[in-house]
């Protein structure tokens, strides 16, 4: 189905294009950093735990924006400019085109996440409660899941007028309902119920687990599973809705199968996944997880002894107190 040389060369060409396009670099790498500073200055002082506590939500926003705006726009643009139509005259398969778009998007999303992390570390001295490798792994799995979803949008959106509308329609509800913009514990219970049906919620839950609560990958296996299944299922659904040309009608039966399939997946996730730990207000003593609690306190004690894994230790400024989860300690 896929010609590996073709996949390699097409991915390479896409990466070259991404590197050479100034607008692509600005929107993919630059724009998410605006949120970092906005969130840090607006919500940072209000949030117990400061910017460190905001990072999982910010990472989720960056991933979602990269996927729903970046990924889909590039694909719609290539279809509208008939570049894909020309590829259609060659033996290259849809799978190759979708995978190569995925490679490019994974690269840009990952780069903007790493840049965000670097800036957060340099400017806000964030504290990380877990191994860097686990966090990177969760970020990559999250990026994979959302890039897969973004590619579906890229296949479905008709043109460059409908693509932004659809992207906003997906992005904003996910931003406000998943805990990415508004801390999850502040959401009313019925919205929390809706949030359990959104993939973004699982990404934030997993990231908070490995970044803030100091959990191991095994402890966030539930949300990671939801993300992995999303990545695989959404990638497979791409082959149902892929179109070479803007004038090709969308096959509604296949579209219904794809959207219905994802809906069933997230309904199942909402019903089966364990309770969101991020539902617990960091200001309150959580009743449900005393074991985690004690481990977390231990770790914080360690950190206060300057042997913790503070990611930004080198950048500590003397006048600024290290804002960390230590604030939640009663």
């Amino acid at each position, binding site marked *: 189905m896929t010609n590996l040389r073709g996949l390699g060369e097409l991915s390479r*060409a896409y990466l070259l294009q991404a590197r050479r396009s100034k607008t692509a670099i600005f929107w993919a790498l630059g724009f998410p950093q605006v949120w970092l500073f906005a969130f840090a200055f607006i919500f940072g002082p209000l949030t117990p735990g400061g910017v460190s506590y905001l990072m999982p939500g910010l990472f989720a926003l960056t991933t979602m924006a990269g996927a729903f705006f970046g990924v889909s726009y590039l694909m719609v643009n290539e279809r509208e400019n008939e570049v894909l139509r020309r590829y259609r*005259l060659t033996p290259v398969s849809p799978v190759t085109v979708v995978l190569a778009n995925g490679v490019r998007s994974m690269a840009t999303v990952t780069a903007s996440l790493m840049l965000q992390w670097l800036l957060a570390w340099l400017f806000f001295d964030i504290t990380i409660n877990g191994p860097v490798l686990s966090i990177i792994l969760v970020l990559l799995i999250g990026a994979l899941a959302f890039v897969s979803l973004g590619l579906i949008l890229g296949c479905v959106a008709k043109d460059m007028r409908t693509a932004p509308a659809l992207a906003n329609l997906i992005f904003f509800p996910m931003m406000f309902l998943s805990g990415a913009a508004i801390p999850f514990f502040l959401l009313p219970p019925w919205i929390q119920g809706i949030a359990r049906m959104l993939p973004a919620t699982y990404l934030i839950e997993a990231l908070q687990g490995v970044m803030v609560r100091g959990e191991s990958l095994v402890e966030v296996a539930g949300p990671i599973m939801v993300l992995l299944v999303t990545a695989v299922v959404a990638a497979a659904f791409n082959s149902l809705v892929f179109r070479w040309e803007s004038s090709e009608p969308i096959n509604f039966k296949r579209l219904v199968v794809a959207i219905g399939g994802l809906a069933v997946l997230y309904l199942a996730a909402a019903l089966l996944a364990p309770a969101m730990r991020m539902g617990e207000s960091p200001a309150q003593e959580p009743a449900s997880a005393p074991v985690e609690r004690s481990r977390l306190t231990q770790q914080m004690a360690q950190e206060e002894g300057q042997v913790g894994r503070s990611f930004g230790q080198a950048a500590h400024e003397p006048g600024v107190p290290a804002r960390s989860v230590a604030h939640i300690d009663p």
Partner: protein
Amino acid sequence: MIIETKSLRRVYGSTVALNGVDLCIEAGGIIGLLGPNGAGKTTLVEILEGLRMPSSGEVSVLGLDPARQGRALKERIGAQLQSTTIPIDLTPFEVLRLYASFYERSLPVDRVLQIVNLKAKANKLTRTLSGGQKQRLAIGMALIHEPELLIFDEPTSGLDPAARRQLHEILLDLKGQGRTILLTTHYIEEAEKLCDRVVMIRSGEVVADGSPFELVGRAGGKSTIWIDVEGDMDPAPLLVGGAEDQGRQGNHYKFTTADPAATIVALGEVLHTQGVSLTDLRMRRPTLEDVYLELMGDPEEDEGVPA
């Protein structure tokens, strides 16, 4: 037979784009598809390329059905689309290298750059190329896998005369290498210059098919002759020879004739017997353009006919 269609029809909503096209094209040479905008040329070539499905009728390209055996066919045909679609932010070298990777076998990129005369621009971004250079790159993209059949849809559209001539030379070189090229165009003099065979299409139907000479001959058009002499001439003997008097154009006498050879012979006699001397003689043979305009008729009907 490299291309064969039988009663090929394609309908878009209430518009008939192709209305029963029968076409047999053998390997070798340049075959021109000529017709006004909206005549169905692009629909026809896109069905041959497998980009569109016919509403009814049969198609076979290199013995394969483009709709069902597209994968095998794509290795063997190369095409350029009417709207030149070259990926941005890449160089011609990178674009050709990318296209080469899609095929099982391909020519070296440098060889293709040489054929389409783009070596000097190999490492410049495609957006800096001129219209003619982009079109040549599009031809290169179609050549990279050494296809048996090349299909070019209006490759010279919108190019300046020099760029067009350069492209003509490339097409003639390819023909010299024994390739078969199917070319759509609405430049008649281009078809006359390049094509071994011309197929004229109007409102989705083939209205003429043959070599440019055959078509002009078959249409039986008249030649025009202009004569300028010193003194007064009585044209009566010319009219006996079959010429029709069209009056004067400036100082020149103007005649039309179906048999220019007979008219010229008659002119010799006029000069001899009337004692006038010839100062100028010009002749224009009927061209493919005359045939074309006669066959295409009212340009207002070019939008396709209602189903």
